């Protein structure tokens, strides 16, 4: 067990590239494995104090008397040679002050990795100890981006540790008797959602790209039917309706029908139910003169989609819309999404729009790889919010708490559940293998995406990874991917 920890540190520093905001280049000096993580500024002195921290940790474990093995662990660690560091505690204090933040970020990443590793190795007690330590260091409401991010990851790991199934963080309420906590929650949710909309293009990017593709696909249709996997508040359709009302080519103002999939437990995410969303959309549609009707389609209890439950009308253009990104809950059970998309195939839709979170390179796979990737991902998200709005700490903290925190928890839960499986891959790849045909994303669509990003910070970019797939990047980290598909022509009736 002790060796596992040592190995963890060794392996990780070699294979994973930089993840904290402080890291720059990696030194090639084999003796300085620690430098793979730190900026060149971080020197031995501060690293040795890192070791001291762990010594404290281990000593506290020993004091707990949690067992003979742990004592052995502490002892082994002290004598380990995995890090060739000259222990010089004198310089520790001075260095810590200057490299304070870098150092702290580094330390937190190490601790998170150690905790994740321990969790994987079923070493619950060690993981618990490390998480305790982490909690002392970080807080979700103040500190740097890295610290807050670490706080959410800590919480997520904590809930994994306690095996609380759904992976919902403790912030979330159940639909219980706490009535005005509900309302607080709702107000927070609304505010956070609006803030997210304003501060970043995450929501609009997916919605607008999908909408533009839909518009282009239905220019000559009189009836349009959209099946929406996760409608939430229906925001995406407001702009689609506006575009339909004012379209110039083809039959004017086609009839729009939206079927929203509803789940047994709507979950903590929604503000109100699907019915309310339907009502709102209907009101909005009538206010702009869009012929509209709204339907619901229930998913099974295990969230499987049955195409037969859908009501179809002859002659309508069927569109399948699947949003799997912020702020929609990104981590729906894969079986559910799979059932939805494969069921969709049997219906021969005109268009399938898919927006999902984009994962980065996983390294050698497995839980740790995906854990680190998730860390990078949300680190980029936090950074992007900060870059646009450096002064609005409280606003960002709200968005982080209400939207991103739960996302992180969901992400880790899913990673943990699938830890023994092969790389799950992207849904867009899955669609490809299922036989859907890609649909090119038009010049106008690209243009729109670029213009949209231009409204926000410079760091956002649109990347075109395939002729039917665009990706939203934050400074070379891919975040969201939007892809457009259609059913293969030979299966048309």
């Amino acid at each position, binding site marked *: 067990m002790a060796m596992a920890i040592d190995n963890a540190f060794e392996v990780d520093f070699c294979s994973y590239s930089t993840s904290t905001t402080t890291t720059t280049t990696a030194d090639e000096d084999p003796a300085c494995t620690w430098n793979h993580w730190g900026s060149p500024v971080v020197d031995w002195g501060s690293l040795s104090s890192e070791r001291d921290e762990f010594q404290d940790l281990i000593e506290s474990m020993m004091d707990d008397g949690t067992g003979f093995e742990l004592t052995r662990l502490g002892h082994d660690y002290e004598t380990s040679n995995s890090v060739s560091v000259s222990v010089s505690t004198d310089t520790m204090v001075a260095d810590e002050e200057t490299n304070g933040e870098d150092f702290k970020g580094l330390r937190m990443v190490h601790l998170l990795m150690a905790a994740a590793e321990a969790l994987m190795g079923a070493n619950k007690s060690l993981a618990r100890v490390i998480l305790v330590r982490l909690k002392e260091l970080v807080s979700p409401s103040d500190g740097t981006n890295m610290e807050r991010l670490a706080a959410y990851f800590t919480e997520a790991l904590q809930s994994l540790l306690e095996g609380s199934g759904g992976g919902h963080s403790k912030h979330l309420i159940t639909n219980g008797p706490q*009535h005005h906590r509900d309302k607080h929650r709702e*107000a927070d949710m609304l505010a956070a959602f609006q803030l997210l909309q304003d501060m970043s293009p995450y929501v609009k990017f997916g919605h607008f790209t999908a909408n533009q593709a839909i518009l282009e696909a239905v220019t000559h249709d009189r009836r349009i039917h959209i099946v929406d996997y996760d409608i939430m508040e229906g925001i995406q359709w*407001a702009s689609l309706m*506006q575009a339909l009302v004012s379209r110039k080519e083809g039959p004017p103002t086609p009839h729009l029908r939206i079927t929203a999939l509803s789940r047994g437990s709507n979950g903590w995410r929604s503000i109100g139910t699907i019915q309310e969303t339907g009502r709102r959309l209907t009101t909005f549609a009538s206010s*702009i003169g869009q012929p509209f009707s709204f339907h619901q389609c229930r998913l099974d209890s295990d969230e499987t989609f049955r195409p037969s439950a859908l009501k179809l009308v002859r002659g309508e253009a069927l569109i399948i819309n699947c949003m799997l990104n912020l702020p929609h809950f990104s981590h729906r059970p894969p079986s559910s999404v799979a059932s939805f998309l494969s069921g969709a195939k049997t219906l021969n839709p005109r268009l399938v729009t898919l927006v999902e979170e984009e994962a980065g390179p996983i390294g050698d796979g497995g839980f740790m790889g995906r854990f680190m990737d998730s860390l990078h991902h949300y680190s980029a998200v936090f950074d992007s919010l900060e870059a646009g709005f450096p002064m609005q700490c*409280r606003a960002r903290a709200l968005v982080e708490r209400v939207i991103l925190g739960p996302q992180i928890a969901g992400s880790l839960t899913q990673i943990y559940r699938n830890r023994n499986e092969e790389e799950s891959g992207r849904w867009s790849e899955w669609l490809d293998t299922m036989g859907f045909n890609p649909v090119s994303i038009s010049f106008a669509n690209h243009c729109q995406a*670029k213009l949209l990003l231009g409204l926000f910070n410079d760091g956002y970019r649109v990347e075109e990874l395939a002729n039917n797939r665009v990706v939203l990047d934050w400074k070379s980290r891919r975040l969201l991917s939007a892809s457009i598909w259609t059913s293969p022509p030979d299966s048309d009736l």
Partner: protein
Amino acid sequence: MYHHHQHQGKNINSSSRMAVHNERHLFLQGGHGDSGLMLSTDAKPRLKWTPDLHERFIEAVNQLGGADKATPKTVMKLMGIPGLTLYHLKSHLQKYRLSKNLHGQTNNGSTKIGAVAMAGKRMSEANGSPMNSLSIGPQANKGIQIGEALQMQIEVQRRLHEQLEVQRHLQLRIEAQGKYLQSVLEKAQETLHRQNLGTVGLEAAKLQLSELVSKVSNQCLNSAFPDLKDLRGLCCQQTQPNPPNDCSMDSCLTSCEGSQRDQEIHNNGMCLRTYNTHKDPLMHHQTETKSSENKTMGNDDDDERRMFFADRNCSDLSMSVGLRGIFSQARNEEHSFLDVGNSRVDSVNRLPYFATKLDLNVDEKHCKQFDLNGLSWS
């Protein structure tokens, strides 16, 4: 026009300077020098692509493996003509590439286009069509080249229009989304109020949240202001038919209308100028509103209502540059947490945010499509 140049990348600036130097140098030498290049002696550094030169260009490009593989630098090296700059080659190569694409798409031979181009000069004078800005030389043997250039220009103009369309639609869509979100929030607020248990905590929380939202929009404003100032300085140098001096609503409207007409009639594709004409009334209106609170609207001293009225009016104008979307959206999103009066200031200030950001961005985009010369084709 010059400002247009200034806004483009550094490369372009330096190459245009280089071209000017070259021209002067050759001029001093008596016009031709030993390069065999015919540089025009008018104010603009334009190189005459004679058929001979063009043939050498094509040779070099084919040697390098085609229009797509060739780069201005390699072509320049290969052609080895002193006095031929990257600047010249960049624009010529771009045109060549475009014409290759067009020829691939359309089956029209260049001969047809050449014939059209011959009469092109007369046609363009008669119609006042987009071919206005194409300078068609008197030499007959440039017919084919001009045809290509014409095609290219049409293509570029088409893309330009498409981009403008996209932008307009984007504004409207964002606005629609904002409206919808606002209705969601309003309904939720209603339910919150109805079910309000009168807890102090809830009110305080709502207040905090509204402050948060207005702070965020303030932030947008503050970051947008420096840009706005720069552009403002810039647009002062643009020709303005009626710079609005007084702060009345009418002037805002007329300048808005006027600038729209401007854009339609001239159609020179100078988006920077177009957007700036819109921005000016904004700036004026904004500053005036702040300073002279009680003057303009008579006894209406409620800033908020005035701004609301302002944006209503402006949105009634069908501005092709969709600032209306910006207005409405700003209004909507400020309305949502309208507990405190500070949002009033925010809404005034928030307006130019999208305009600024959008304009700069679109400007870049459009400029990329243009020939490096700016407005005219060499």
